[in-house]
């Protein structure tokens, strides 16, 4: 090929490489940005007066006197609203029967939506569930709920060849000609006065237990459960993994037994994680009864099995990368093989081993399938330290899945979902950063 052709080919490869790496960066940004933005929304948001009521009731946080002042202000903005509702209810019997039926149905629907926005009306009995005790606690939720107050969602099925078309029908039209008609513009214009939003930094999101199925509160038990499971997995997998790696590199001869062992370890790392989960249930719980049913310890053991191959592999490679001359030097000074391993080999291999461990920690923290059958529950407190042998725990990975699939009103707690995903990603990311930092620090130390 001539020179120009070679140069052109070279350039083409450079451009292709840059394009594909650029594509990767864009994909990561597109993936992570919304998660970060919305995840931060779980911590920093505009909280309404309803939020402050809830905080005081459920968590005993906030200033009662201050709040009472605010409630008075809010009530002065709300009272014209309730006045109108009362008047309308009283006047509804004056309408002709057909009109009355339609109006009372619409009114009932409207009231339900308004309760979600403002909480129970004055004079009504206090509902049982905390989720019904308060109106919209977050401003972003309040705006969504305001929309359902102002508009009625209907579907147009007139064209049979098409799916039903969503129509947002203004409720003010339904109540046209009644005393309620001018309630809607009033509500829209006075939202800020009625709900009094203020920015808060809800840092206890990471430590608070959730109240009423994640409607309020934080993700404390999930975070603690994730830490339990991850550390538990590390406690079991690290000694086993490092000892296996030492055996494979230092003690065993290269024969059919060790090559089969290596193949098995590689195979183990290719097993789907859900299989580990089922194995954990069948073996740890049903066969050897480490616990009566799901427990932190069973989940940790299952996760330990999952990350074992990674730890063995990375430790093995780190140990093999230690120059042979270190071994010779130590042995020539009269060190026993074991002493040589502990005093020279492992310290020199530590950066590689640590990197493997920390990356495995990230993996263990994020895995869902292995803990579904062995450790995770969707609600409840994280167990006390001594109860980990018998009690299951909520965990971030599982609860993200659970909220997405099983929560009845997940659209009202999106912020919790994003908060969980954000927290989990931050845990994994910070573990990876820690790995990089530790590694560079140790490498510097070893290089002198």
């Amino acid at each position, binding site marked *: 090929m001539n020179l120009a052709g070679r140069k052109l080919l070279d350039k083409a490869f450079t451009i292709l490489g840059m394009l594909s790496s650029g594509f990767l960066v864009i994909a990561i940004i597109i993936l992570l940005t919304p998660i970060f933005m919305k995840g931060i929304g779980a911590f920093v948001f505009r909280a309404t007066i309803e939020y402050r009521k809830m905080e005081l009731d459920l968590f005993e946080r906030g200033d009662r006197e201050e709040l009472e002042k605010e409630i008075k202000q809010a009530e002065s903005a709300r009272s014209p609203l309730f006045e109108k509702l009362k008047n309308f209810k009283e006047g509804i019997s004056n309408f002709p029967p057909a009109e009355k039926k339609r109006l009372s149905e619409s009114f009932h629907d409207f009231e339900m939506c308004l309760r979600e926005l403002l909480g129970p009306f004055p004079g009504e009995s206090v509902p049982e569930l905390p989720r019904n005790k308060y109106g919209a606690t977050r401003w972003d939720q309040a705006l969504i709920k305001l929309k359902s107050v102002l508009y009625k969602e209907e579907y147009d099925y007139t064209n049979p060849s098409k799916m039903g078309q969503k129509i947002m029908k203004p409720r003010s039209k339904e109540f046209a000609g009644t005393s309620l008609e001018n309630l809607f513009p009033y509500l829209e214009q006075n939202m800020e006065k009625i709900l009094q939003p203020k920015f808060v930094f809800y840092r206890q999101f990471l430590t608070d237990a959730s109240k009423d199925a994640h409607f309020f509160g934080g993700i404390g038990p999930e975070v603690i459960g994730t830490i339990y499971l991850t550390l538990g997995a590390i406690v079991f997998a690290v000694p086993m993994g490092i000892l296996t790696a030492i055996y494979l590199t230092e003690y065993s001869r290269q024969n059919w037994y060790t090559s089969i062992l290596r193949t098995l370890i590689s195979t183990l790392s290719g097993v789907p994680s859900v299989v580990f989960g089922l194995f954990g249930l069948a073996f740890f719980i049903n066969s050897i009864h480490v616990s009566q049913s799901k427990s932190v310890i069973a989940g940790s053991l299952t996760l330990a099995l999952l990350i074992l191959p990674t730890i063995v592999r990375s430790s093995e490679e780190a140990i093999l990368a230690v120059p042979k*001359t270190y071994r010779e030097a*130590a042995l020539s*000074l009269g060190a026993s093989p074991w002493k040589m391993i502990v005093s020279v080999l492992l310290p*020199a291999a530590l950066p590689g081993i640590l990197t493997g461990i920390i990356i495995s920690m990230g993996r263990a923290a994020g895995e869902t399938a292995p803990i579904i059958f062995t450790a995770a529950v969707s609600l409840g407190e994280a167990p006390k330290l001594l109860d980990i042998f018998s009690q299951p725990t909520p965990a971030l990975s599982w609860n993200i899945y659970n909220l997405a699939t099983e929560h009845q009103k997940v659209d009202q707690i999106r912020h919790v979902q994003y908060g969980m995903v954000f927290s989990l990603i931050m845990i994994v990311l910070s573990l990876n950063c820690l790995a990089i930092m530790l590694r560079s620090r140790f490498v510097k*130390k070893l290089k002198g």
Partner: protein
Amino acid sequence: MVNKKKAFQISRDTSATNKNSQLSARKFSVFYGKNEAVKSVTMDITKGAVTAIIGPSGCGKSTFLRAINRMNDLIPLVSVTGELSIEGTNIYSKNIDVIALRQRVGMVFQKPNPFPKSIFDNVAYGPRLQGIRERKAVLDIVEKSLVRAALWDEVKDRLTENALGLSGGQQQRLCVARALAVDPPILLMDEPTSALDPRSSGRIEDLIDELREKITIIIVTHNMQQAARVSDFTSFFYEGNLIEYSSTRRIFTMPSDKRTEDYITGRFG
């Protein structure tokens, strides 16, 4: 358990009148699998002298050297026949404590191989292995060893720094100091200057000169001038056989074997 193993009691009397054999090989062979790398070598090495082993690459000289502190044990499929004894004790007999042996037979390697630890910890490694924990005692040994290795003045202010920050020549002298710290009666040197520049090599040679008479040194070298300069006795290995072994002056002035002469004069090798 230690009592069961035969301990090494090597006498330290190195007065000139007692220059008898400290290490003796009798029909000693080393095999890599079926391949005989050292062939039935018989030789006696004089106590307190510097003995050089020369020969072309692959002649078995390093293998022989590494057999003396049983470093060859690390290589799979190595076997030996014959006898190799230090002061009358066959070091390949069954009840030998290899660890005790290596503590008495130090070794300096081809490439400087300090541990990635501080200079102090490098030298203190051997003494600590022997159970010396007291800081003062360890410090004394470290200083003494570094002084003996002619490195003390250069590193006394930075003992806690990483040994890998030293220059190649300094690293090699550190390795000598580390080997000397366990006070071995015998020191093996496997081409200790092949990775060093001439100036650093010169310092190592000076060091060997200073250690003469105090400990027995066996040095493998590719450098004929070096062998002539530092050694009292020279042995010439060729294809696993010990061809000639006598005083260095004799080997370099009137070798009795044609192959020795050819090698020394540079006709092959």
